[in-house]
């Protein structure tokens, strides 16, 4: 049988489009519904993060890291302060480490909730999105209780955290976890195991492991392709080596390993693992002063460092070069969503228009982080 070749049409998805997760423009060449070529154009949200960093002091960088990945600000702060502390050789108190891990994992849950919810929205399920936002609100309430801000926290500082935990934090946090754990099953019943959802996601947008590694895809997307790689386990930073948790991997339960469903499913499983980590951290939370090791002046020694941490989207790396002055010489942020999006043109080719949206959603990109 010959191949029918119709006229091709160039279609612009975005920059204003309901499901590009920000201001992303995809130039898509389509043959009917089939997408034959896809070219992402980014930069609509470019805010010169790296240029800014060269003009502010080290502590003033932290509010800017918040705004890079605004869905998981805590993790961005975390990555920055861990890198800075390694550069300055600060050993922070135990309590700070535990608080940071709790906050980072809570934010991971919040970020995954948003990712899963909007993914549901991308494939047309509206209700799970609102359920997940409802629960995300509760996490934000906990953050507000802790540091006063709901979205952009500026909570973790080099050498400590900005506020100690509020009285009663353990009870509130455990209360939330107890409330939240059964909800995961409800989401699974409502969305994950839904046959229509499976049809839309399983076997769609397969990202083979070697391609994923070559594209530098990391985090849940890489684990969805079945590569066991988690910075928390493999290059433990902070105190992650003390906690027991699994690294969920994509198994191709309903399709091929590395399809959109696997990426989705890894996120669902990771929420459960985060809950485990938080429970352990709260159990062992020591007392202490959280402001003890905050340096009066941040003046790291001359040198450079590259450190990566596990943000909800993957390997978040900071490359910091110091020339001994109070302002950084260069801060480079290696954002996980940037590499994930660069793989889109590879994996979304040849799928249908609706699948491109679904694949884009499954990569869980945040444009704030890509454009910086």
């Amino acid at each position, binding site marked *: 049988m010959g191949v029918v070749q119709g006229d091709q049409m160039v279609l612009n998805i975005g920059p204003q489009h309901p499901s590009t997760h920000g201001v992303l423009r995809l130039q898509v060449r389509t043959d009917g519904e089939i997408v034959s070529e896809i070219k992402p154009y*980014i*930069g609509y949200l*470019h805010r*010169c993060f*790296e*240029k800014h960093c*060269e003009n502010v002091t080290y502590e003033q960088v932290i509010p800017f890291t918040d705004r890079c990945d605004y869905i998981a600000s805590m993790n961005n702060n975390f990555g920055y302060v861990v890198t800075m502390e390694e550069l300055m050789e600060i050993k922070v108190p135990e309590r700070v480490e535990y608080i940071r891990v709790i906050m980072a994992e809570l934010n991971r849950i919040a970020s995954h909730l948003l990712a899963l919810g909007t993914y549901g929205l991308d494939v047309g399920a509206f209700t799970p999105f609102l359920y997940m936002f409802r629960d995300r609100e509760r996490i934000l309430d906990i953050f507000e209780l802790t540091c006063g801000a709901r979205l952009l926290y500026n909570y973790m500082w080099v050498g400590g955290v900005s506020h100690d935990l509020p009285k009663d934090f353990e009870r509130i946090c455990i209360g939330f976890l107890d409330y939240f754990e059964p909800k995961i099953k409800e989401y699974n019943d409502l969305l994950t195991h839904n046959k229509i959802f499976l049809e839309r996601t399983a076997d769609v947008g397969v990202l083979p492991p*070697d*391609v994923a*590694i*070559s*594209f*530098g895809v990391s985090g849940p997307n890489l684990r969805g392709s079945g*590569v066991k*790689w988690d910075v928390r386990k*493999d290059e433990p930073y902070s105190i992650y080596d003390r906690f027991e948790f699994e690294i969920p991997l994509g198994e191709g339960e309903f399709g091929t390993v590395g399809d959109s469903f696997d990426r989705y499913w890894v996120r669902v499983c990771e929420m459960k693992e985060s809950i485990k980590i938080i429970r352990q951290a709260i159990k062992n939370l020591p007392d202490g002063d959280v402001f003890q090791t905050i340096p009066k002046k941040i003046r790291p020694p001359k*040198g*450079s460092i*590259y450190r*990566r941490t596990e943000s909800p989207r993957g*390997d978040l*790396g900071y*490359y910091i*070069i110091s020339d001994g002055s109070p302002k950084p010489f*260069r801060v*480079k942020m*290696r954002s996980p969503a*940037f*590499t994930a999006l*660069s*793989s889109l043109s*590879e994996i979304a080719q040849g799928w249908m228009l609706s699948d491109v949206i679904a694949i884009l959603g499954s990569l869980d990109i945040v444009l704030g982080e890509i*454009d*910086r």
Partner: protein
Amino acid sequence: MTSKEIKKTLDRQFPGSVIENVDFAERQVELKPDQWLEIATFLKNDPGLSFDQLECVTGIDTGEDGPLQSRYNLHSMEHRHKIEVVISLDRSNPKVASIEQVWRVGDWFERETYDMFGIIYEGHRDLRRILCPEDWEGWPLRKDYETQETYHGIVVSKIKEEEWE
């Protein structure tokens, strides 16, 4: 493998390519730019090294008169070791071979570094600006960068003047 061993391997394989520089830390290795593509291919394909993941490409401007640098953070999923490659480039003519076809992620990373520093990656198939508009002037992250005055008739504000007084 430790970074020392990796350096040794590189020196054996490509004599003269590794530059000894005391300025750099243990984990870093400075290379000459001319053989970079071959070295990169070797780094990726050699079973002993097998750096299959390019973590990050960072451009650095070392100062008004210093060279530009392109730094590559490599990581091996198999051996779990890593190395940072530094390549210094001449400021007036910053050109280095593109490793975009070795590690696919290099595509966007190199475009970004090109966009910010004007480092030209030779052999890159699609070297365009990625974050700035395509007709933007200058290389923003260079230390001697000066903002263009207008962009398509829009005045580019430089430093915030106190216009809100």
